[in-house]
C-alpha cells in the first residue's frame, strides 16, 4: 500500500509537469498581442510596451518558459494584472466556495444517482426503469444555465421557497471563519447557539448543488444500473438466491459493493466536470467561487490569474483521482495495490 502510494505520487510529477506546460503553451499560442488586447481602446504604444515588459512578454519564448517553470516550482503565480494582488491569495479567497459547492453537488449526485441506478436495475424493463432512464437522459442533455434559471423560476419565484443566489442572506452580515460556510455556520451554531446561519447557508446551497449535480447524477445512475445488472447475472448471486437469502440483502450487501467499482471511477472523473460546470453554476447563482473568477480572468486576459487558476484546478482534479484509486481497495479488497 505504502509502496503503491509512493509510486502514484511519483507519477504525479510528470502529470503535473504536463499540465503546467500545456497551460503555458495555451497562452503563448493564443493569437494577437495579449498586452494590446488587455488595454483595449485606450492602448497607446508606451503603455503596451510597459505591460509587455511587466509580463515578461518582451523576452524570447524559451526564456519565458524557463522563468515560468522556476516560478511555478515555488508556487509563485505572480500578481494578478487586474487587481495587483498575489494570484495565490485570490484563489485562496474563492476556492472554499467552489469546493463546498462541488462536494454538495457530488453528494447529491452520488446518493440519488446510485439509488436510481439500483432501483432501475432491480425493476429492469418496467415503467420504473423506463421513467428513471428517460429522466437520466434528460438530465445529461440539459444545459446547466438553462436548468439553473428554470430551478430559480420554480423554487425561488414561483414557490418562493429558496433564494435566487449567493451563499447566505447578505443582510445577516455573516463573517466567515474558514470560508467553508457550512462548517463556519456550524461553528457559530456551537459558539452562539444560533441556527439561523446554518439554515440560510443550506437554503442557499440547494439550488446550485442540484443544478450542478444533475448531469453527474444522470451519468452515475446509468453506470450504476448497467454495472448492477452485470453483477446480478453472476454465479455468486444466483447461489445466494438459491440459498434463500433475502433479495434486499443480496442487492445491498452482496451485489452493490461489486457494482460500485466502476461507479467510483466515474465519480472521480465527474469531479473534473463539476469544476468546469461550476463556471456556469457560479455565474447563474451568484456563487463567489473560482470558476467564475477564472472566467473573468480569461475575459480580462489576466494571464497570471488564468495560469494560476487552471493549474490549481488541474492539480485538485489529479489528486481527487488519486484518492479515488485508493478507495478501490477499500471497496473491493480483491484489487491489489501494487
Amino acid at each position, binding site marked *: 500500500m505504502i509502496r503503491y502510494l509512493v509510486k502514484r505520487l511519483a507519477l504525479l510529477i510528470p502529470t503535473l509537469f504536463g499540465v503546467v506546460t500545456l497551460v503555458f503553451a495555451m497562452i503563448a499560442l493564443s493569437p*494577437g*498581442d495579449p498586452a494590446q488586447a488587455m488595454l483595449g*481602446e485606450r492602448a497607446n*504604444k508606451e503603455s503596451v510596451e510597459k505591460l509587455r515588459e511587466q509580463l515578461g512578454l518582451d523576452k524570447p519564448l524559451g526564456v519565458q518558459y524557463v522563468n515560468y517553470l522556476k516560478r511555478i516550482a515555488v508556487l509563485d503565480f505572480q500578481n494578478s494584472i487586474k*487587481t495587483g494582488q498575489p494570484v495565490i491569495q485570490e484563489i485562496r479567497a474563492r476556492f472554499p466556495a467552489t469546493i463546498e459547492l462541488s462536494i454538495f453537488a457530488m453528494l447529491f449526485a452520488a446518493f440519488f444517482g446510485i439509488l436510481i441506478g439500483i432501483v432501475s436495475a432491480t425493476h429492469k424493463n418496467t415503467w420504473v426503469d423506463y421513467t428513471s432512464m428517460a429522466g437520466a437522459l434528460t438530465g445529461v442533455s440539459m444545459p446547466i444555465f438553462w436548468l439553473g*434559471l428554470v430551478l430559480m423560476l420554480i423554487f425561488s419565484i414561483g414557490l418562493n421557497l429558496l433564494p435566487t443566489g449567493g451563499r447566505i442572506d447578505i443582510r445577516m452580515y455573516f463573517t*466567515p471563519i474558514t470560508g467553508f460556510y457550512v462548517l463556519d455556520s456550524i461553528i457559530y451554531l456551537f459558539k452562539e447557539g444560533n441556527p439561523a446561519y446554518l439554515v440560510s447557508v443550506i437554503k442557499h446551497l440547494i439550488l446550485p448543488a442540484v443544478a450542478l449535480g444533475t448531469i453527474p447524477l444522470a451519468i452515475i445512475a446509468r453506470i450504476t444500473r448497467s454495472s448492477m445488472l452485470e453483477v446480478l447475472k453472476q454465479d455468486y448471486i444466483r447461489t445466494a438466491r438459491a440459498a434463500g437469502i433475502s433479495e434486499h440483502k443480496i442487492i445491498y450487501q452482496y451485489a452493490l459493493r461489486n457494482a460500485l467499482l466502476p461507479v467510483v471511477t466515474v465519480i472521480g472523473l465527474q469531479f473534473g466536470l463539476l469544476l468546469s460546470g461550476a463556471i456556469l453554476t457560479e455565474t*447563474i447563482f451568484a456563487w463567489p467561487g473560482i470558476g467564475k473568477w477564472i472566467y473573468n480572468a480569461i475575459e480580462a486576459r489576466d494571464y497570471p490569474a488564468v495560469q494560476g487558476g487552471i493549474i490549481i484546478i488541474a492539480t485538485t482534479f489529479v489528486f481527487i483521482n488519486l484518492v479515488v484509486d485508493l478507495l478501490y481497495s477499500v471497496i473491493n479488497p480483491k484489487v491489489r495495490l501494487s
Partner: protein
Amino acid sequence: MRKVIVVVALLVVAASFTFAGGQAQQPSNTAAMTGPKTGGTLVFGRSGDSVGLDPGRETDGESFYIADNVYETLVAFKPGSTEIIPDLATSWDISSDGLTYTFHLRTGVKFHDGTPFNADAVVYSLGRQFKKDMPAYKNGPWQYWGGMDMDNIVKDVVKVDANTVRITLKKQEVPFIANLAMNFAAIVSPTAAEKWGADFKSHPVGTGPFRFVSWTKDDNIVLERNPDYWGQKAYLDRVIFKVIPDPTARYLSLKKGEVDLIDFPSPQDIPAIKSDPNLKIVQQPGLNVGYLALNVEKKPFDSKLVRQAMNYAINKQEIIDAVYGALGTPAKNPIPPTMWSYNDDIKAYPYDPDMAKKLLAQAGYPNGFATDLWAMPVSRPYNPNAKKVAEIMQAQLAKVGITASIVSYEWGTYLDKTEHGEHQTAMLGWTGDNGDPDNFLFVLLSIPATQIPAQNISFWKNEQFEQLIEKAKVTPNQATRTELYKQAQVIFHEEAPWVPIAHSIVVEPMKKTVEGFVLYPTGKRVFQSVWLDQ
C-alpha cells in the same frame, strides 16, 4: 371572428398598459409628498465585483461605484449632468494666463478615520500619483492619471496654507478641471493610506456620505452612513453592493425582492420589468458613441459625397431594433446627448437610399463600389454585437450598389490594424471619461490623433474643425466653449468622416419603494440622495 378576438386582445393589452402606467405614477407621487425617510438598507445587485478600492489606482466602473460613495473630489459633477460644481473645494481662481488654479478648500471636513481634510490631504492624494520622490508613489500604478494625460498637463500641486491648494499647469488646458471631478482625483485620508500602504485598496477611507464596512470578494461590499458627514447626510443606514453576474438572475433577484436596484438588465427582460407593478425604471443615454469610421485616406472615402452617401444609405433604426433593443438610441453627433454642448439643432441624415445613389453618381460611382467593413470581435457598451451590425449594414449598402465585405480580427489585432489605418471602413466606439466634449472631439477627431497609432481612425484632418476644438481647449468661458463645440459638430456633420451609429442607454430597474435615485452620465452610482419609502 378572428378579427374581433385580435381587437379585444389589443384593447386588453392597451388597457393593462394604461393601468400599469397609472399605478406607476401614484405611489411615487404620494411618497414625494411625504418627503425623504431616513433608515433602511438598500441592496444594489450589480454585474461584477470591484477590482480595488483605491480610487487613484483603479480603472473599472465597478470599483468606482464604491469610490462614488466613500470618496469626494475637489469639484464634482452636478447630479444627472456633466456640469462641474464645487465639492471639497468651495471655489477656485484661475490666473489670467490659465496656468495656475488656486483652490479654496471646504473647512471643518473630516475623513472617516477622524483625520482632518486640508491642503496636505489634497497634495498627498494627487501628489502620490505623479511625484516620484513621494514614498506613496510606489503604491501605483496610477493608470488613470496617465490615461488622462495628467503628466503632460500638471506641473505641480502645492499647499499655499492649510485650506488653500495651488495647481500649476504645463500648458493651458481648460478641460483639466473636469478631470478633477473624476474618481482618480478623489481625496484620500493620508493617515489611512500611509497605514495600509499598497493594501489601502482594501481599506478605503474618504470624506464621502458613506463609509466602508466590509468586503467579501466576488460577493458583497457593505457601506454604512457617515454620521459626521459635512453636507446632507445619507438617508440610508447601509448600502450593500451585491454581485450577481447573470443579468436574468439579477432581474429575478429584484423581482423576488432580495435586491432593491439592479444594474445592466438584459434587453429581453425589460418589457417584463416595465409591466411589473412593483418595479420601475430610471434611464438615460450613456456617455458613449458607437460609430463606423470612413478612412478618408483610402478611396472612395476621400470624397465627401461618398461619405454622405454612406450616411444616407444606413438605416440606424433598423440596427437599433435588431441589435440594441431598448438599450440603444440612434446617434447623429460624435458626442452623446447628455453632454453639454451637444448640438441638437443638427438634423440627422435620414435613411434615404435614393439620395445615397444620387450622391454616389455625383461622386463618380453610379454603379457603387466595393469596400471592406470591419467589425469588432467583442461586445462593448456602445456596440453589443458589431458583427451583427455589420451584416445589417452589408444588406443596406447592397441596396445602393455598395458591396461590403465584412472583416474581423481578434480584438488586440483589430485595434492594432485599425490604429495603423489598414481598413477602408471600421466600426469602433468610445466611452467618455470626464464628461468634457474635448474628451470625445479631440481624442477621436483631432489632427494629432491621426498620428499612428491613431485614435482618429477615419484619419480625417480638417483645419477649421481643428481650430475650433483647439480654441475651446484654452477658453475658460463655458458659454464660449459650448458655442465652439456646437460649430465643430456642424462641420463634422457636413464632412461626415463617420457614420455615427448609436449611444447606449443606461437602464436601471428598481423597486417602486426606491426614491431619489439619479443616474449620472459619467456612470456614477451615487446613493447619498436615495431613500426607501417603506
